[in-house]
């Protein structure tokens, strides 16, 4: 359910940007989010829709795009995808979601914890990079007059 918090972060950031630039209208916003965040885009879209009401962002067309995750080991050079990573995630650590009661990996909330929660599937090293698929950002925005 941290989709709501993220939606709030996006909307607040965009609103202050648009206001700082003295604009009155936003036509389009493209959000790029990492696969590791495993976001529920229905909830995220709905939350954004609710939060933009009454702001300069109201009426803008939001599109949400997922960026695939890719990992590369600095020790042995292996690369792997999120499906492989997901299977290796230990259930030793979790964050309990309210009110659903679901228990999720902390990775889902904080993708940059990857090195603590994953190892290279080939050599077992934690010295790897998560090359893509982590954060959330505004990839594109079209402003109106």
């Amino acid at each position, binding site marked *: 359910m941290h989709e709501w*918090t993220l939606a709030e972060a996006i909307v607040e950031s965009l609103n*202050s940007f648009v206001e700082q630039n003295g604009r009155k209208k936003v036509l389009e916003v493209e959000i790029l989010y990492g696969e590791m965040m495993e976001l529920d885009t229905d909830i995220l879209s709905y939350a954004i829709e609710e939060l933009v009401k009454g702001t300069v962002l109201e009426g803008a067309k939001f599109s949400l795009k997922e960026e695939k995750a890719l990992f590369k080991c600095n020790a042995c050079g292996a690369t792997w995808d999120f499906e492989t990573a997901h299977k290796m995630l230990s259930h030793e650590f979790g964050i309990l979601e309210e009110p659903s009661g679901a228990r999720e990996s*902390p990775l889902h909330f904080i993708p940059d914890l990857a090195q603590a929660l994953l190892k290279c599937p080939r050599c077992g090293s934690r010295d790897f990079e998560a090359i893509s698929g982590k954060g959330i950002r505004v990839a594109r925005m079209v402003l109106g007059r």
Partner: protein
Amino acid sequence: MDRDILFERGRRNLSRIGRIITIAAGKGGVGKSVVAASLALTLGERGKNVGLLDLDVHGPSIPDILHARGEIVASKEGLKPLSVHGIKVMSTGMLIGDNPLPTKGEDKRNLISFLVGLTNWGNLDYLIIDLPPGTGDETIWVLRALRGLKNVGVLVVTTPSILAVSVVRRLLSMLEDEKIRVIGIVENMAYFNCEGKVYRPFGRFSEELVRRFKLRVIASLPIDPSLEQTIYDGGLPHRSSEELKSAFYRLCDVVESSWGE
């Protein structure tokens, strides 16, 4: 458009907190975490709403010092810090246990942005931030996030040792350049009592440095031989000895009045 959404969110969260006290030292192992935890607990006992944010992401010791065990709960409002001993605590220790976390640079700063951006502290009078030694990514993140905020002060923890002087000097000049207010110097492990006589094995903290930066040594904390045992036995650091307890009370008085009303 290049906005760091989570960093901005984290900074906004911090700007809504009453007062933020960052514990910095430059040097390792001088008692930052013990002081951070003790200050938070003492302020909590004085009726304040207190949060304690452990930003030592590689070696979080706050969960050990406070015996803060348990998983973090998430809701629509974000991650709930763990409530222990009357204060709210957030630490990577509660998210990844004792697992190593080899990360650096931008990744580490993003980790902190997510942690601070997603945490919902509720209403806080005080947030105490514990940092690792040095001036690496964690410290850089804090400097960036606190830059320009009015509700901020730094406590510099050090031992009186001659070896701490150059490290503290570097830290103080950095804080001066960044225009971040230093509340004062906390001299830890300053002395011990033996059969009525006071010994100062590390001497006194450099007066030259105190003058140069127009600061005050606002607390001299004793070496408490029972502190480790207290923590080991599940007790809390600020109550380890009467002397330490009253020293932390006096420190809180100075800290609270340093803001002026």
